[in-house]
């Protein structure tokens, strides 16, 4: 029974749901909830990026560009033009998808380091535009973003809500919302991975030439997954903007792009649960290291380096391998 459960396709999703809904037992103030909400939104972004990096084997060093575009589209449309949140999020995601498709076709012909260079350039160009178009974006000072609203109903970190008789404050409500969003993001990603598209992508990762030889239209699949991951980033950028209530061009910046790709690699490329773990770890680490004050940067760099040197496959796959080995040993001993 337990074994069959462990082999279930949606096992990861169930485990994740249990963790997400059990987590509030350990969160006891709005600050914790806000941190967890940020983690969930960023994790969903990284789950999207992982489709590109972990499954199709393409490197993007500019994904924050798409995240920032989504955030700013939402910010500008909801605060200056009075749009409601959902249409702003959807239209933003579609536009970013189109942008990604246009830049993706020529870029994805590139290999390895040239691809990382090109995606880095795209991210930089987006951040520079957001920085300089002051009339629209407020420039480096940033811009305020109104609360998330659907048909006049508002989800604000400062509100208070009632869910099935439970009293929730704004931070708790946002956390539950973000948790559901993350579950949906993972479910969609899992479905994509298990579809024929996912198999085609993995073949591209294995060997692009071999994939082409057996008739996989590699260019089409690569741009498709690039667009999908950009849409993930844009939609999560929109939510992030609403949640934070204030955005600056840093959300589209190089540091953020690096953070995203680092989460993927640190957590474990190609493992959806792994990259979520990567997001959690890299979001928590600065909180833990903040106590060390000036030593924070040095320690962050050292931890990043050491983890990647000693666990090149990433945190979760390495842990799973270690646990798997031990379990096998145990089973072998009993038989």
């Amino acid at each position, binding site marked *: 029974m337990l074994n069959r459960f462990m082999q279930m396709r949606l096992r990861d999703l169930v485990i994740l749901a249990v963790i997400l809904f059990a987590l509030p037992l350990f969160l006891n103030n709005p600050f914790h909830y806000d941190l967890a909400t940020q983690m969930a939104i960023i994790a969903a972004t990284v789950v999207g990026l992982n489709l590109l*990096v972990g499954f199709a084997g393409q*490197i993007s060093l500019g994904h924050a560009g798409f995240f920032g575009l989504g955030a700013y589209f939402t910010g500008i449309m909801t605060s200056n033009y009075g749009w409601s949140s959902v249409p702003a999020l959807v239209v933003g995601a579609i536009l970013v998808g189109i942008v990604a498709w246009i*830049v993706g076709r*020529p*870029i994805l*012909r*590139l*290999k*390895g*380091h*040239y691809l*990382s*260079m*090109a995606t*880095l*350039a*795209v991210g*930089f*160009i987006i951040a*520079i*535009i957001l*920085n*300089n178009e002051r009339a629209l974006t407020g420039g480096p000072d940033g811009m305020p973003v109104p609360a998330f609203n659907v048909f006049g109903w508002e989800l604000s970190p400062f509100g208070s809500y009632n869910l099935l008789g439970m009293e929730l404050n704004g931070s708790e409500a946002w956390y539950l919302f973000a948790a559901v969003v993350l579950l949906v993001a993972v479910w969609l990603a899992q479905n994509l991975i298990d579809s024929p598209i996912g198999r085609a992508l993995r073949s591209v990762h294995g*060997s*692009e*030439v*071999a994939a082409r030889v057996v008739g996989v239209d590699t260019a089409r699949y690569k741009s498709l997954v690039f667009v999908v991951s950009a849409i993930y980033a844009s939609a999560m950028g929109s939510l992030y903007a609403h949640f934070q209530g204030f955005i600056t061009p840093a959300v589209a910046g*190089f540091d953020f792009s*690096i953070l995203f*790709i*680092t989460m993927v*690699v*640190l957590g474990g*490329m190609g493992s959806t649960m792994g990259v979520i773990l990567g997001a959690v770890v890299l979001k928590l680490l600065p909180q833990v290291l903040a106590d060390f004050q*000036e*030593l*924070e*940067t*040095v*320690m*962050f*760099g*050292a*931890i*990043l*380096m050491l983890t*990647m*040197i*000693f666990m*090149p496959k990433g945190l979760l796959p390495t842990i799973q391998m270690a646990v798997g080995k031990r379990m096998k040993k145990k089973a072998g001993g009993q038989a």
Partner: protein
Amino acid sequence: MFAEFLQYLFTGITIGATYALIALGFTLIYNASHVINFAQGEFLMIGGMATVSLTAMGVPMILAIILAVLLAGVLGILLQRFAIAPAKQADVVTLIIITIGASIFIRGLAQLVWGKEYHVMQNFSSDEPIRIFGAVLNSQSLWVLGIGAILVVGLVLFFTRTLIGKAILATSMNKEAARLVGIRTQLVLMLAFLVSAVLGSVAGVVVAPITFTSYDIGIMLGLKGFVAAAIGGLGSGIGAVVGGLLLGVVEAMAAGYISSDYKDAVAFSMILVVLFFMPRGLFGAKVVERV
């Protein structure tokens, strides 16, 4: 009108020469080990910052520069030995993240030792600018160009005339074969990082009087060097020099004639245009992929 153009050209060539040196550093390491070293910019920072702080302690400039370059060189060797070598089986992205971790680590150390302020460095020779056809040329620019040219010529001689240089080339072409003919490839890789760190730190020292220097100056300069190397075609020495100069001049022209806010955007658009038409950069070798 002409004076203006000349002015932008001077600025462009000066900064372009710096980019070229950084790009050469990238190229060297890339050729020897196929790693893109995102910590390359930190060598520049170390060069500039160490020179500034040593001269402030009363060490004569020339000695300070030598010590700073040595420090960067040691750092380069340590980076190869303790961060890159143990992870040689890792994925390309994993290696990128390791070098990013290394650059954060080095930057953190620099911030601890030297603080977050900007530091000013004296010109090597007089502060008196030189006037040519109405354009002003900082005397330091001549130092940048002169030392840059000497380094490039030195590198060419090193790779064509010395046994060690040829050993690096051989390793970059085929590591297994190089080992078979008795080249100690691990040593060669360390050497490549050493030379690359020396190049970077020298560039950092000569350009510091013009740009000032601070603990985080390496991020942007390093990225520009990567852009220059990619424009020229990763792995090509001529490409790195041409790419660096081209990037510097285009950037200066864009800042002068279009808008200084968008000069970086122009640099990054240029790389997209180049890669669009020449996916392996201007001088990149065409390679056949083995399956």
